[in-house]
């Protein structure tokens, strides 16, 4: 699990106490990578690499050595069991990922944005910022390592984007293509020539991928089109074909290794599989849960990994079935202004001992802290998630905004709301009952518009008897309502349901926060600056408290637990105030800008996290903090909660004694779940210490036929490949015989093209062949042998050459092929013939 690793995210503060990330760390920054055997998947998570097994979806190990964000990982081309990673500060590390050992480490001495190893040698390519002709530019550099670790840097391209998806390497590094805005650059590595193409039509490229075997590029743009570019290295107006299915920007393209298929993804939550050559034929894997950000393909094309915006990675087989989902805490990727990132906050479900928070849109996710695993996402709103029409006009979704569990966990109450700003808000309150026999939640009561405005707080009365639970909702419509379970039995069925018992208000100000006392006998409701106390059973106002000389609204309210049940804590924007409810006096008051407040249900402790991310822990009896910890989070903290420890007593060092009964968890804006704990001297190392088990599996019956080690003295025969179809020279013959005889060119001028047409063209690349065309190919040797002889020889050779060609096309037997040396001699001989002066032929006609 992504969350299972506890990695130290912040520098140590205490002797050995630090903030640990429990889950929710971002795995989406960069593309994941498959190992060559497709057994492992490497995921970049900040400064560490997570290794997952693709088969089981289990986390194997974590590679941490880097100190900065890792910007790229590649399999070492020379040894496929090595992984090379590069961080943004230029540190490159070679790993043995099967053991998690660092093999080599060096620094590139510059800031790196993306990192590649496309070439067969050990050279690396990276995108960096560079001063080029007095202007800052983002460039692609190539570094080659010679034998004595000497580095040779070469400049390849400029005007790039600092994004790994904007660049691709084709034909094993033969050319490099990059996109930036509406421009496409293609750079030929050998000839060092560069060509620029424009997209036009006010579209912008989003990603690029190169065909593995052909000179072909696929680009995605923000209008959802995929363009296939051909002969872009040769002409200014290259041939293009358009594949248009996506309606949102294409975020990832990938060719299969054979190049027969193309996969593409976008914001529609759909994986599209195109068949090259017949692009009207496509296959889809829809409803993947969340918009897709990246796409990776394994080197055998059997597996795909899609990175989703909800921080999950799905492994999909080439048959388009999901085989594994790697998921820590589901991130809320739909940031709706009306509800914020984490509207529900952190809630504890005692029945499953799970932390409950917002998950997918309209879902609640259950996350087990003990096992560091997400249990499931519970669909609360029951609405299909539609992907957005465009980025400018986002769809407003119904989001779960409040959730609460009863003490026993039998009841779950949720408030969902959809506010698009111009039509009537859709608010509904749902009461779910956990059904033991079917092990699911059953919807018991649904209340439409429980309040006319946003519901601010939803709470169950704690400590209440099982048969008469109460729930309270507060709202901006100046009211709070108390809901009770009523009997709705009739002669047909036995049933109970929830109904509003009473409704309270105070001075027509908005009811914001609410809290129940430990035993459930008192209810505190905040109305702007006033904290009011009510008895929930008969809804009678007991007392109203205000902070003297304070005009701020009260933002938090909390009753003391256990020994401090007579104390009420309230927090404004700048202050924390504790009232004594026996005397109605202020017990103590401190100036603190608290953003998140949590009370320990097992003791009289409260923890507050301030705006500047400092944690203060108080015992409610005194104003001196028990514990303080600075910089607990890099981004603002949204919510905090004390979760009871699974075991009654957990040993803690003296400074963390306050966490003896309950552990404090808090979540920040980046949706990382954090906690404070002792760092137990390298958890990662301990993990690696396990007994190494020698793999000793019996061989399969076929495996037994193979020797453990094979050595052969047989010299490998180099096969010649002849890529030619049809009769050699047939074109020349048609040329010669096709025209009328009186227009026939002199025979001497026909002879050379005829003979050259009979020869097998050299298997070199076309470019060089064309260049060499005018030069004499054969060595300038003298003409040999008699005239008539030479012609018959040529014919013979022609016949001879025909045979192996056929054989080769069938690929049957290499023994019939002339040995390579012979072939070369023959060829040289034939060239000699071709070079001869054919003037004498004229006399024959």
């Amino acid at each position: 699990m992504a969350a299972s690793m506890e990695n130290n995210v912040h520098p140590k503060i205490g002797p050995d106490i630090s903030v640990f990330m429990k889950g929710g760390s971002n795995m989406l920054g960069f593309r994941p990578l498959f190992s060559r055997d497709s057994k492992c998947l490497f995921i970049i998570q900040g400064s560490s690499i997570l290794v997952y097994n693709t088969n089981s979806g289990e986390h194997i190990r974590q590679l941490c050595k880097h100190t900065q964000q890792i910007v790229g990982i590649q399999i070492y081309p020379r040894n496929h069991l090595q992984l090379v990673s590069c961080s943004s500060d230029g540190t490159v590390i070679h790993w043995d990922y099967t053991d998690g050992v660092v093999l080599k480490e060096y620094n590139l001495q510059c800031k790196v944005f993306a990192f590649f190893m496309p070439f067969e040698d050990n050279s690396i390519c990276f995108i960096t910022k560079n001063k080029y002709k007095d202007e800052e530019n983002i460039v692609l550099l190539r570094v080659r390592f010679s034998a004595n670790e000497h580095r040779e840097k070469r400049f390849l391209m400029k005007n790039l984007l600092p994004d790994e998806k904007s660049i691709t390497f084709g034909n094993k590094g033969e050319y490099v293509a990059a996109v930036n805005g509406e421009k496409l650059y293609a750079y030929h590595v050998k000839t060092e020539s560069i060509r620029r193409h424009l997209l036009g039509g006010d579209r912008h490229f989003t990603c690029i991928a190169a065909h593995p075997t052909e000179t072909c590029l696929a680009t995605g743009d923000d209008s959802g089109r995929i363009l296939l570019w051909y002969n872009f290295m040769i002409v200014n107006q290259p041939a293009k074909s358009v594949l248009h299915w996506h309606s949102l920007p294409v975020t990832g393209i990938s060719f299969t290794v054979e190049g027969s298929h193309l996969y593409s993804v976008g914001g529609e939550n759909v994986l599209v599989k195109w068949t090259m050559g017949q692009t009207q034929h496509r296959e889809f894997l829809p409803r993947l849960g969340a918009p897709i950000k990246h796409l990776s393909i394994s080197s055998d094309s059997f597996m795909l990994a899609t990175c989703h915006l909800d921080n999950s990675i799905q492994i999909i087989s080439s048959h388009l079935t999901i085989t594994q989902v790697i998921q820590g805490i589901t991130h809320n990727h739909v940031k709706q202004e009306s509800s914020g990132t984490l509207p529900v906050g952190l809630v504890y479900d005692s029945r499953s001992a799970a932390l409950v928070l917002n998950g997918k849109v309209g879902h609640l996710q259950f996350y087990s802290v003990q096992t560091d695993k997400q249990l499931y996402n519970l669909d609360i709103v029951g609405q299909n998630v539609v992907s957005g029409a465009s980025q400018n006009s986002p769809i407003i979704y119904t989001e779960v905004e409040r959730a609460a569990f009863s003490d026993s966990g039998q009841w779950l109450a949720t408030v969902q709301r959809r506010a698009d700003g111009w039509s009537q808000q859709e608010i509904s309150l749902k009461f779910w009952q956990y059904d033991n026999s079917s092990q699911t939640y059953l919807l018991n009561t649904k209340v439409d518009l429980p309040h006319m405005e946003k519901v601010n707080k939803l709470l169950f009365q704690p400590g209440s008897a099982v048969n008469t639970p109460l729930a309270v909702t507060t709202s901006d419509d100046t009211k709070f309502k108390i809901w009770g379970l009523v009997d709705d039995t009739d002669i047909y069925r036995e049933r109970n349901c929830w109904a509003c018992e009473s409704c309270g208000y105070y001075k027509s100000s908005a009811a914001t926060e609410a809290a129940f006392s430990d035993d459930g006998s008192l209810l505190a409701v905040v109305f702007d600056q006033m904290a009011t106390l009510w008895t929930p059973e008969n809804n009678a106002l007991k007392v109203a408290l205000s902070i003297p000389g304070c005009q701020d609204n009260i933002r938090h309210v909390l009753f003391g637990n256990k020994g401090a049940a007579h104390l009420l804590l309230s927090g404004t924007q700048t202050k924390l105030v504790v009232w004594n409810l026996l005397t109605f006096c202020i017990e103590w008051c401190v100036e603190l800008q608290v953003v998140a407040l949590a009370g320990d249900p097992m003791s009289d402790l409260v923890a507050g996290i301030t705006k500047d991310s400092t944690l203060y822990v108080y015992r409610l009896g005194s104003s001196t903090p028990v514990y303080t910890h600075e910089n607990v989070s890099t981004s603002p903290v949204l919510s905090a909660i004390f979760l009871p420890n699974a075991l009654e007593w957990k040993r803690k060092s003296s400074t963390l004694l306050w966490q003896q009964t309950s552990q404090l968890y808090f979540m920040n804006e980046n949706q990382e779940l954090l906690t404070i704990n002792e760092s137990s001297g390298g958890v990662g190392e301990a993990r690696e210490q396990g007994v190494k088990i020698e793999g000793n599996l019996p061989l399969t019956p076929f495996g037994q036929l193979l020797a453990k080690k094979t050595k052969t003295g047989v010299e490998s025969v180099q096969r010649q490949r002849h890529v030619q179809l049809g009769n050699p020279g047939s074109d020349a013959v048609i040329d010669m015989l096709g025209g009328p005889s009186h227009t026939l060119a002199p025979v001497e001028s026909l002879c050379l093209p005829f003979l050259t047409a009979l020869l097998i063209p050299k298997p070199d690349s076309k470019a060089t062949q064309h260049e060499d065309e005018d030069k004499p190919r054969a060595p300038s040797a003298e003409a040999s042998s008699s005239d008539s002889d030479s012609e018959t020889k040529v014919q013979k050779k022609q016949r001879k050459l025909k045979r192996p060609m056929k054989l080769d096309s069938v690929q049957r037997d290499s023994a019939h092929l002339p040995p390579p040396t012979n072939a070369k001699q023959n060829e040289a001989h034939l060239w000699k013939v071709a070079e001869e002066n054919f003037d004498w032929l004229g006399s024959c006609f």
Partner: protein
Amino acid sequence: MEVVDPRVFSPSGEYLAYSSPDGRLKLWETSTGTLQQEYTPASHLSATCTCICWCPTRHAKEKPVRRKKKKEAGEIDTPESSERVEMIAMGTKSGAVILYSIIEADLKTKMDGGHSDAVNCLAWDNMSDSLFSCSNDKYIVQWSISSGKVLHKWKGDKSAVYSVCLSPDRKQLLSASRCIKLWDIDTRSLLKVFIGHSSEVVCLRCITPSAAQESKKDGYYVLSSAAGDRLINAWYVKSAVETDKNAVASFSVTDEPEQLHHCISQSNRHPGLLAVATRQGKLHVFEYQLNGRCKKPLQPKLTLHIATSGDSGETPKPISVIGVHLLNDRQQNILIVYGDFTRPKFERLPYSTTENEVCLIRSDPKTVNRKVDKSITKVKMPCTSGEVTHLVPSHTLPKHSNVVKKRKLSTSEADESLAERLKSASVNGPTSEVPRTDTMAVLLTQGLQSQDMSMIDKVLTEATANVIDNTVRRLPVQAVVPLVQVLALRMSAAPNIAQTYIQWVKSILSTHTSFLMTFPELIEKLSVIYQIMDARLMMFTRMSRLKGKLDLIFSQVNPVEGKRVTDQAAMLVYQEESSDDDVDSDLGDLMPTSHSESEDNWENLSEEMDVEEVEENQDSEEDEVVTTKKKRKK
């Protein structure tokens, strides 16, 4: 001996491993009940698995150090749940031991050459890299896990050895065949023999003592169960030789135990628990204190059955508990598996001894639709299709309307006398005269007392404003609150006809204010009415706004007949100079005088413009005509 398919929970209760007779290994996640992994071995590896053993957690190595500290603090050493198990060892019928890696979801290694017959039990010792196995071939084998080789092999008994178990200090080994033998691991010498069971001992469990108890005593307790035996014995093993060879305590179960799991006491407040799943599918939970001898067999504190409800006329069928695991947590939850292994169901039950015998009613997993959820994505759909009470703002009470209607139907048909009484009550003058209100009041009181809905209905719906006031005034105070409740119920049940009821409420509130103020349960009884009123008022501003808008629209759609029409006609005949004045005068009649001037100006302006335009148009038309003519000439 009947062979039971091996099923073992991981130490923390996170997973359940089960091997089916066809050699497939299944792994369920207990918290969600999902089949996490299913491994079907390749044909050359397949073997019927006879026993399963989970690898102890890797962090076990650190534990001895910790334990020393904990001794002082008086705390317990239990495996932390966050540590992950990664391996399963399986013994096969052929005598090989297979290690399966959960992380890789694949076999890791196969250890061969130790046994010649089926392996019966495995004990894993991670600290010394060894694994103990016992077999039907009478031997006990110590394997090296890392190399997969046999370290030692010795004959355990004259007959098959059924179970092995490591002592808490990992220096001694207990083996069980017909009797229980204690071995020293290093020397492999027999230390002691315990005799007590009459049949083969099939299961041995060593109770790892808590640190507090460990410090006091130098021995430890071992639990054993035997084939066909209804007693589970507890033995006290002490390093000193002179301890007795008999069981110190025994637990009686109703049936042969199939799986047992125990947990030690967390603190002094809770006793240790022993949970036993029997072959017949019952669950027994025992409490025990490890404090020496106990003559009588202990009886279970809690016996649990599971059965189907038998709702639809069927006889309730028992569902067997097939596995149990005690989660040693705060609530002392018991994790049970029931049903069968094609579709096991997991459930966590908090341990409580309020009832000695508990029967859970559960739906039979066999009959539940067999749609196997194949999806990998972890999204659960809660059940929303069942009976759901739906409440809306003006309808904040559960729906009793159905009930009311049905009752009304039945009573009105059955009770003829009521209708007669009603008729007789209104006989005096139903058409012209106002009904006698005293009769209405009496009728209403009677109806409220007898809960006769039709009678109440008659009174409530047939009254006029005047009658309502009079009736309410004459109503005895005892009937006021019941009437209010009846009204509230009706209003919430049928909000669309609440209009008449509101009259009643209004009248009651104004007439009986003083009584209601003194009424002690005022808030409880009137809150419903308050809510309804509140909800109805909530919509008031919106409704009035809507009404205003609708009025505006309708006034546009159906123009007011009369003068409007005339002024429109006047607009049309603007070109006639003479009629202009008429229009103006008409407009002047319609509009306030202050505006008439500007209105006139505007109109004049527009006229001029129109005229100009028209002229232009004419010009252009003429031009066109000219051009066409020209063309024709050409």
